[in-house]
C-alpha cells in the first residue's frame, strides 16, 4: 500500500507495517514475528524498564509479552487499535501484574513497614507529567492531557509511568487516599470523554 503523502507521522507509517506483521504472525509466520520483534521491542522494553526499574525483570517481561503475542496475535484487531498501542498495553498490564503482586506480597509479609516506600522514587513527578504531555504528539491527545487539572495530570502520570497504586500514590503525594482516588477518577473520566470525542484511541 502506498503511504499517504503529507503530514503522516512516521509512527503511523510504521504502524501500518506492524499491523501487517502481526497479521502474518497470527498465521504462524516466524520471520514476520522476528521483524515485529525488531521493530517494536525497544519501545516495549522502555515501557517495562520505566515501570519495574530493573533491567533483568524488564527483559523477562518483554520475553513474556512476545511469547504471548506469538500465541495471541490472531486476537489483534487493526481497526480497533494501533499496533504499538496494543503491544504497549499488553506490556503495561504485565508490569502492573508484577508490581501489584509484589505490593501484595510486601503488605502481607511486612505489614508493619507500611511507611517504607518499596519503590526507589526520585522526585521525578514533573518528568512523568512532562512525558505525558510529550506523549501527545497527536494534537488531540495533547489537548486532552492539557485539559486535565494539574493534580489530576500529575497523579495519572505517576500511575501511568511509574505503576504506582492508589496507596502508593497517596503516600508519595502526601494526600489522603480518598483525595487521590477522586483525582484519578475524575481525571480518567475527563480523559475518556475527551479522547473518545477526538477519536484519539486509534
Amino acid at each position, binding site marked *: 500500500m502506498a503511504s499517504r503523502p503529507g503530514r503522516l507521522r512516521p509512527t503511523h507509517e510504521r504502524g501500518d507495517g506492524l499491523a501487517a506483521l502481526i497479521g502474518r504472525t497470527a498465521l504462524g509466520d516466524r520471520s514476520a514475528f522476528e521483524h515485529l520483534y525488531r521493530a517494536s521491542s525497544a519501545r516495549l522494553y522502555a515501557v517495562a524498564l520505566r515501570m519495574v526499574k530493573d533491567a533483568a525483570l524488564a527483559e523477562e517481561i518483554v520475553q513474556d509479552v512476545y511469547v504471548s503475542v506469538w500465541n495471541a496475535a490472531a486476537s489483534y484487531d487493526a481497526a480497533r*487499535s494501533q499496533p504499538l498501542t496494543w503491544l504497549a498495553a499488553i506490556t503495561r498490564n504485565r508490569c502492573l501484574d508484577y508490581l501489584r503482586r509484589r505490593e501484595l506480597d510486601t503488605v502481607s509479609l511486612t505489614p508493619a513497614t507500611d511507611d517504607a516506600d518499596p519503590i526507589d522514587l526520585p522526585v521525578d513527578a514533573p518528568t512523568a507529567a512532562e*512525558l505525558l504531555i510529550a506523549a501527545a504528539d497527536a494534537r488531540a491527545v495533547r489537548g486532552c492531557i492539557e485539559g486535565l487539572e494539574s493534580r489530576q495530570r500529575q497523579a495519572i502520570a505517576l*500511575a*501511568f509511568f511509574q505503576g504506582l497504586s492508589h496507596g502508593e500514590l497517596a503516600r508519595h503525594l502526601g494526600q489522603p487516599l480518598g483525595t487521590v482516588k477522586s483525582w484519578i477518577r475524575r481525571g480518567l473520566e475527563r480523559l475518556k470523554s475527551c479522547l473518545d470525542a477526538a477519536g484519539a484511541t486509534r
Partner: protein
Amino acid sequence: MNLSRPDRPDRLDRLAAEYALGTSPPRVRRRLAAIARRDTVVAAALDEWSQRLAVLGTALPEVDPPARTWDRISARLGWSATADARPSWWNRLAVWRAATAVFLAAAVALGVLQTVGKRAPAPGIVVILAGSDAKPAMIATAAPGEEVLHVKSIGATLPPAGRVFELWGLPKGAAPRALGVIPAGAVVELPTRSAAVALLASFPALAVSVEPPGGSPTGAPTGPVVFTGQVEQMF
C-alpha cells in the same frame, strides 16, 4: 462481584479504568483479571481502557533490550536457531487434520458437497475451514474448468457487524495471499481469474480473517484469523 450486569456499566467502567491505569488494589486487580477470563463484557471493558490509555505512553524514549532477548524468546517458543523453518501454522493445522478428515467423510455422506459433486465429477478441491474449536464454519470448493471458488457457510457464520470475512491462501513459507472478500450469503462465489483448482492446489491451506469492509487495507490479514483449513484433493 457481578461486574458484567448491564445495570452497573458505570461501575464496571470505573473499575476497568483503574485496572488499565494500574491503580487498582492488588486484590481487585487479580479478581478483575480472573473474571475477565470467563466474562467477555468485563474483558472488553478492560481491553478498551488499556488501549485508550496506552496512547499516552508514546513519548517514552526507546531503549534496545539486550541482544540475547530474542534468542531467549525463540528458545521459550521451542525454536532453536537452526530449527526447521517450517511455519507453525502448519503445525497448528496438523492438530485439526483428524477432525477435518472425519468431517469430510461426514460432509460427503450428508450431501453437503453435493452441489460441487453435480458440477464436478472430475477431481476438485475441498477445504473445510474451522475455528480453533475445530468446528467447521465454511467449506470452500473448486471444481475443474471453473474460475470461481464456491464458499458455503455452515450454520450462522457471520462476521461482526460492519466487518467482512476475507479468504487467504497460505503458501508454505511465504506471506498469505489474498483470495478476496467473501460475499455475504450462505452459498457464494468468489471469482479467481484463473483455474480455481490450480489456484487452490498451490496452497497447503487457507485461512479466513475478519477485515474492514472492502477487505484488508494492507494486503495482509489485519483482523483476527477466525478459520483455517487444509486444502484437500477430492477423490
